[in-house]
């Protein structure tokens, strides 16, 4: 297994395309940090607009590394799936397109094993991408903006979390985001087994995510109770659950999560989707005639 995995990782990281994703992420994060460094107080003003009629809070305190990271994740985690699709959607179809798939499949490795290895490689790429996001969005933001309590703006309430109670939440959030993005990778990977060119699966994944995200964000009661709970994009926001805290008479309870069951449920649903996509892909690929 390990030599094969090494090969797949070698193939991924020998391609310039792979690093586009890392560069794009660095660029986006840097741009957000730059904007917040110079115009952050206005942004904080916007986020706190609901409070400003009753409360005063120095924007400088709200605008810290943790807050910047939260906002980067808020913006970025909706778009990282596209970068994941770029690689995962190419895993099978790209080989078909290049003409190397027929050589791989004619090797003494079962197709199931080949797909498991390839999916593992795509997942490792996804994890590395998230580690990259974590380094830039959390560590670099802390260096640039310092630390303080984390101000979490929500639709109908505000959570403030103690500085010493934040890092584990980020660790958990990144772990959760990993599950979410691996689900996207699995979707893309499944579509990749269907196609003989890489554009199709990548575009299809992006379209699915755009449509689902719009449905998730739309506040229409009809969708709220009918299809929203089944969209994986709804559950991909679950990382935020780690920043929704419990309170006792208005006081944040350190180490608490408002609804851990919902977060776990979302995580399980995502894992379920990932498994479904992966096994559908494997099932299909085992029956596929390699004509490319």
């Amino acid at each position, binding site marked *: 297994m390990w*030599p*094969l995995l*090494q*090969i797949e990782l*070698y*193939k991924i990281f*020998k*391609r*310039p395309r792979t690093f586009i994703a890392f560069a794009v992420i660095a660029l986006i994060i840097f741009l957000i940090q730059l904007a917040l460094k110079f115009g952050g107080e206005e942004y904080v003003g916007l986020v706190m607009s609901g409070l400003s009629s009753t409360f005063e809070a120095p924007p400088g305190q709200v605008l810290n590394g943790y807050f910047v990271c939260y906002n980067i994740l808020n913006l970025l985690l909706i778009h990282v799936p596209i970068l994941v699709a770029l690689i995962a959607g190419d895993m099978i179809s790209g080989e078909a397109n*290049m*003409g*190397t798939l*027929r*050589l*791989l*499949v*004619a*090797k*003494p*490795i*079962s197709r199931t094993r080949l797909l498991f290895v390839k999916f593992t490689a795509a997942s490792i790429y996804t994890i590395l991408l998230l580690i990259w996001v974590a380094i830039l969005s959390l560590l670099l933001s802390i260096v640039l903006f310092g630390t303080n309590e984390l101000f979490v703006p929500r639709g109908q309430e505000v959570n403030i979390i103690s500085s010493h109670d934040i890092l584990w939440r980020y660790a958990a959030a990144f772990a959760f985001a990993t599950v979410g993005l691996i689900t996207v990778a699995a979707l893309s990977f499944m579509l990749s087994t269907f196609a003989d060119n890489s554009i199709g699966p990548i575009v299809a994944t992006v379209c699915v995510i755009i449509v689902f995200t719009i449905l998730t964000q739309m506040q229409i009661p009809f969708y709220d109770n009918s299809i929203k709970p089944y969209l994986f994009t709804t559950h991909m926001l679950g990382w935020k659950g780690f920043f929704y805290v419990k309170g006792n008479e208005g006081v944040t309870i350190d180490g608490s999560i408002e609804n851990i069951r919902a977060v776990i449920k979302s995580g399980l649903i995502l894992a379920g989707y990932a498994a479904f996509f992966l096994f559908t892909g494997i099932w299909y690929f085992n*029956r596929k*005639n*390699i*004509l490319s």
Partner: protein
Amino acid sequence: MSAIIEVKGLTRNFGEIKAVDDLSFTVTGGEVYGFLGQNGAGKSTTIRMLLTLITPTSGTIEIFGMNLREHRKDILRQVGAMIEKPDLYKYLTAMENLRLFATMSGIKISEKKLMDQLEMVGLAERAHSKIKTYSQGMKQRLGIAVALVHDPRLIILDEPTNGLDPQGIADVRNFILHLSKDQGKTIMVSSHLLGEMELIADSMLIINKGKKVVEGRSDELLNPEKIQVEILTDNTERTRSVIKESLWGQYLLDKDHDSVLLEMQKKNIPELNRMLVEKDVNVISLRPKHSLEDFFLSLTRH
């Protein structure tokens, strides 16, 4: 030698189309087996079925005496293949490609051995260049090196000379002969050119529209007891009458009036030639034709 590939009743349908239709053949160990047919005759589909890329609709394939379905891994470990264009990872070097496919075949191989392989196909100097900088001929040679990297018993080459210049074609031809004669490999080569197969194949299979046309040893197929000889002279009428009046008259065929055609034993051609020269016929050419080529040409024409 025992049968290396044993195919029985192999059929593959794509919807209404029968790409391969009840095909049976046997490849014997140590031989170069020419697999002939026009483009679209079903060669590639057959080869892909031998390599488990396509599932047969019906029929059985046995390789090394084992059922391909049941012993896929054991069989493929000993099979090397180049299928159509030798597409490799363009963004990797020759060395990297070779190492990668060796690992995929389940073997560990030293850097030196890999270099030897590249040396053998004449790519040692470019071992560390990316494939995207390679010419078609170089890619073809690397494709063969990839097929051979794990030292397989059986080598399947699908149109290995496609897109090569005459020198490249000759190189590949010599290489195949070298593998067969010097290394004792069993090699199945597909082609749509009979002339090319004549030069290397020990046995041949010709298929058309997915069906077997003929199979047999090349010398028997190409050198039957009686062959047709076409005589071209400066005066066809006179030549015909000279032959009619001689002992050779009984062999004369009447079907073609533009040239003179005889059906006779190949060994008697020099004697016929001597007779014509003695009778003052100006011979331009004496060309033996075999029915296989006739047949194959007729296929290509249509």
